[in-house]
């Protein structure tokens, strides 16, 4: 296959992935909608539901609607997995289209493609283990939106790597950074849901009515908190490895200084410190739960700001991927 053919394939695969993710989103939303049953049904299961979600999830009383919900849920994850496969093809295509062939991490478009891929992949892989079904619409929604940003604003033709990027450290550094980014994003989603559910629970308690049914599917607060912690606990060492070990080693080889307080480095450091704060917060009385979740969101915000935003704020970054750096 020629390079242009690979590039075309990649573009088509991105489009396909985008469409299928979107379909998955629609299905997930339908799943959510199907949880909001007519009032009569609701009466039947709603009473126990508010207090005991586990029971309501399995409640046979819902009958046909429950079967439909389950079917939609399965369809959703299936579509997500398919889209994820197309997403992967898109990445491979980018790498194969370049001459010489390379990892698909040459510019912001490719980084964003990779980052969203990891988010989707982690979701699909962890779906069973952590019963992440409830997270579907959020994950897919995030991926679709970010892919759109990538295609519309960040698109860049396939090109060889700039000289500084041409290093084995690129592979190690970026793989770990992208994996950590994907995991932090999932952790952020869990933290958002923690806050949403906490608020809903408080309101429901105040109004003395059961929790709305779609929130019922979201795990309980302590489970959400623990899930968020576990994902963050996985992501944090990976991030440490990416930005505090491989990053400096590579920076030392390419730019002669292992740490230069370059804006990208500064924000990677800020992200690291905020997440260290998150881990501390979970061990500090009075910061558990809500405040920790808020910190996790600050962390995700700094992370994605660094990933995409800082490029537009600062012109001095040596990480300006598209620009040729070796001009004194």
């Amino acid at each position: 296959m020629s390079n242009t053919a690979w590039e075309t394939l990649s573009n088509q695969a991105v489009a396909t992935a985008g469409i299928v993710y979107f379909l998955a989103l629609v299905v997930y939303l339908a799943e959510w909608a199907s949880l909001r049953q007519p009032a009569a049904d609701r009466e039947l299961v709603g009473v126990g539901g508010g207090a005991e979600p586990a029971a309501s999830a399995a409640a046979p009383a819902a009958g046909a609607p429950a079967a439909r919900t389950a079917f939609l849920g399965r369809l959703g994850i299936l579509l997500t997995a398919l889209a994820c496969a197309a997403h992967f093809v898109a990445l491979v295509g980018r790498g194969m289209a370049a001459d010489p062939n390379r990892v698909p991490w040459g510019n912001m478009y490719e980084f964003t493609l990779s980052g969203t891929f990891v988010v989707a992949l982690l979701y699909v892989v962890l779906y069973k283990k952590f019963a992440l079904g409830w997270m579907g619409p959020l994950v897919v929604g995030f991926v679709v939106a970010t892919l759109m940003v990538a295609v519309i604003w960040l698109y860049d033709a396939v090109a060889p790597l700039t000289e500084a990027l041409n290093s084995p450290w690129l592979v190690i550094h970026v793989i770990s950074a992208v994996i950590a980014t994907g995991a932090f994003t999932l952790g952020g989603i869990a933290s958002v849901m923690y806050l949403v559910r906490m608020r809903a629970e408080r309101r429901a308690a105040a109004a003395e009515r059961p929790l709305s049914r779609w929130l019922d599917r979201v795990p309980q607060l302590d489970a959400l908190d623990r899930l968020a912690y576990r994902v963050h606990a996985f992501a944090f060492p990976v991030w440490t490895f990416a930005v505090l070990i491989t990053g400096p080693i590579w920076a030392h080889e390419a730019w002669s200084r292992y740490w230069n307080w370059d804006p990208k480095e500064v924000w990677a450091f800020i992200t690291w410190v905020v997440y260290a704060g998150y881990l501390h917060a979970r061990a500090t009385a009075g910061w558990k739960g809500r405040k920790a979740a808020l910190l996790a969101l600050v962390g995700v915000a700094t992370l994605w700001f660094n990933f995409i935003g800082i490029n537009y704020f600062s012109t001095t970054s040596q990480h300006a991927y598209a620009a040729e750096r070796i001009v004194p």
Partner: protein
Amino acid sequence: MTTPRRPSPPLRSPERRRGEPGPSGDSAAKRDSERRPGELTARELGRWTWRQITSMRTALLLLLLLALAAIPGSVIPQADVDSLAVTRWKDQHPKLTPIYQKLDLFSVYSSPWFSAVYLLLVLSLVGCIIPRLLVYYRALRAQPPAAPRHLTRMPVQASYTTEQAPADVLEQARGVLGRRHRLRATGDGDDYVAAERGYLREAGNLVFHLSLLVVLAGVAMGSLWGYQGGVILVQGTTFSNNLTQYDDFKPGGLFRQDQMKNFRFSVDDFSVDWLKSGPRFGQARKFEAALSYRTGDAEPRKYNLRVNHPLEIDGTDVFLIGHGYAPVITIRDGSGQVVCTGPTPFLPRDASFLSYGVVKCPTAKPGQIGLEGMFYPSFEMQNGNPVTVFGDDLNPTLSMLSYTGDLGLDDGRSQSVYVLDKAKATPLKKADGKPMRVDLQPGDTVELPDGLGTVTFDRVDPWIRVQISQTPGKGIALLGVILALIGLCGSLFIRPRRVWVRAVPAEDGTGTRVEVAVLDRSGNGETDEVLARLLPQLKKESQ
């Protein structure tokens, strides 16, 4: 550290352990009652301050403060990173500049206020780590704690009855738990087994925090004893590692000149690969400088210096960080004598390698000669404008203005080689009164007016910019982060757990009643799952 406020006594986090009231707690309380409210002795105040500084909450706030304090440096240009950008910024914001300067906003990361934040954090860290090291040392030697009296009141517990005698049940439990737990030595008449595991978690945590200090030490060494210098070297020239040879030099605070290693290298050749097609048309790649280097009197050796492949000589690193063109220009003065000749590095303005440079020839007679202007690697006229269409030197062209008079080189002030001092110089004019331009291609010669002489453009040589640096402590810093990562993984993934199994004769007299409780001390573990896994094992073995 404040005294514990959380109600559930068994959940002892490290924070609580540090916070346990010392032996003086009671007497202090007594003394308190005899004093007026608000009164504090200096000692108490000191202790209170120390507790505040080393509390977990303070650590957390300091961490957030550190994150916040790092932000300005990413939006305001930093002198250490890009001094050119700082100068540009200052020109654009004359009003803000003095304020920013007062606040050290152009050198945030070495400013007193930024240092204050991280030094406080270090203080807090030390104050936090040392007591915990002692606590950990004691915990390592201590036995797992005895079983609480009422296991069934623990949050995660189970009980069942079995036919087996209590002693047998406990024996089995020891077998099951003993493989992966430390067991409490049983006293006579104990009706339980107490087991604990996951001691390494706290060790990991301590290693992590201590390693942060190691990293800091490594970084500090680099900035105190290290140096970075840059120099532009034209192909064919030789560099000896000597302060006078550097174009710019940034030593650390404790740098001594005798640290500089004795070596030399010459740039034999430099090549670049220019992309002639595709979306990155015009981008340069595969920069390669062939060096011969020697240390002291050793035999010369060869090295191909490339981006991402620095050369290490004797603990000093040499990096290729830039390149450009040096037109070789020869000036003959009025008498036809060659007065100035050689390559002059021109500085690239942008990625097209349109370059700016200056030639000064103060020894020419009857008048000094100065040239200032542009070099176009691939010259072309487009719509009447001179441009360079490519970075490669496919059609090298010089276009400079010429000056004579006093170039300001005689009054002893140091002057940048890239700036022509035109204060006392006059532009040369052609016979028709237009400025005298020196527009040349290799091999061309132009005659200056007023019998000043001639200028010849012989050829173009490439130059490279190398960065030469010593970064002592970089190995220590690296070791520090690696240790930190290992400690971190231990701290995050090891689950500290206590398990108790109690076996007592059942109340109704038939068989034995077994109670099992699991406690995860990190508060993050799946204790229910652990219990669920443990129960069948206990039951199976007891059959």
